């Protein structure tokens, strides 16, 4: 199977990484005009690797779209704007009238599918197929703590839409919060470490979340399993992949 790492390397082969010239930066700043650099290309490229696991998936994956409808009265104007834009496939940075946002949100059939410890988890139809998911954490100053739309979620191709937060470096990532959305066929999600899977968390109402009892050491990624314990999805956050 092809590897993505070599492709990423090849994508930047010849990048002139050894052609730094601070004098040129200063000169441009002084003259405030752009001039092209006629510098020879260099062959050095950073070694990067993104390993993608080859994981089969099967089992039952049914429609995730349940939960209680959310009245537009419960949303702030900012939330309406962001959600309406995302669900319609346009950038939230583009201006839209309140009326346009309202119409977009109504068309998206926004639903709250779960609530945990003050956080709310929403899904909405994405224009063109798939779903938009949003999380609202208590006390957050932003319209939504996170939001994302995917044309492939939920599906056998993408049974999990993970929104876990990782920190640390690329070589030694640590997990701060395990959180995301999962299709009906996914029963539990766990953190992958060098020692195996830890912090197994049940999927309830198509949502998984865990903030305590997470591994303190570096992690490899996350893994999702069905009710029989079969791995249905794996997401690696380290160079070189998660291994087998």
């Amino acid at each position: 199977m092809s590897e993505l790492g070599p492709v990423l390397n090849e994508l930047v082969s010849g990048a002139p990484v050894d052609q730094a010239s601070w004098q040129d930066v200063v000169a441009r700043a002084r003259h405030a005009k752009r001039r092209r650099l006629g510098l020879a290309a260099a062959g050095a490229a950073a070694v990067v690797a993104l390993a993608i696991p080859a994981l089969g998936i099967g089992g039952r994956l049914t429609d995730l779209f349940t939960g209680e409808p959310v009245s537009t009265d419960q949303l702030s104007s900012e939330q309406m704007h962001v959600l309406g834009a995302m669900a319609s496939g346009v950038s939230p940075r583009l201006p839209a009238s309140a009326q346009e946002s309202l119409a977009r949100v109504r068309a998206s059939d926004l639903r709250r599918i779960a609530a945990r410890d003050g956080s709310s988890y929403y899904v909405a139809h994405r224009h063109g197929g798939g779903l938009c998911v949003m999380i609202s954490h208590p006390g957050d100053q932003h319209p939504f703590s996170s939001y994302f739309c995917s044309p492939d979620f939920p599906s056998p191709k993408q049974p999990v839409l993970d929104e876990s937060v990782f920190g640390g470096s690329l070589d030694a990532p640590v997990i701060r919060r395990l959180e995301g959305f999962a299709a009906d066929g996914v029963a539990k999600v766990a953190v992958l470490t060098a020692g195996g899977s830890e912090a197994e968390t049940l999927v309830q109402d198509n949502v998984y979340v865990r903030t305590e009892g997470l591994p303190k050491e570096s992690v490899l990624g996350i893994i999702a399993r069905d009710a029989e314990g079969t791995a249905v999805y794996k997401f690696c956050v380290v160079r070189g992949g998660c291994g087998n």
Partner: protein
Amino acid sequence: MTVARKSSVQPADIEAIYRDRFPVFVLSITAVLNDGQEALDVVQEGFSRALRRRRTFRGDGSLEGWIWRIVLNVAADRGRARAKGLVPGDDGCGHHDPEAPDEAIRSHLRALPERQRLAVFLRYYADLSYDQIAEVLEVRSGTVAAALNAAHTTLRNDLEGVAM
């Protein structure tokens, strides 16, 4: 009367970032523009703008994050100019076999939505943390996680589709 706040950012601060991080800026922008020489020009221009505009840095985020945003904006301008035919771009002549597996993956990589593509490049070329990527792209860390996850899923499926 409005009194302008004096910037605490000195040219040496920007120079330090330039000297330390130049290669990853060039790598990331090369991936974005698919043109190393164009990327070099963009990085030089971006840092020169940062130097000129350093007094506008408000200090509500990291200086490097602010510079990344400037450089990415220059790259976006260049990409738009190229699309309009104002700046010559990579014609790819004779370099790629469109039926080669890697070329197919490269095409899929380029076809990713902009936010996903930038998140992948910033993560893997610049080794930025989720929080740093979130700062650069002006989104939340959770959104970065979702963007990377979606990109991984898409590319994983593409890799499987071109398995040799």
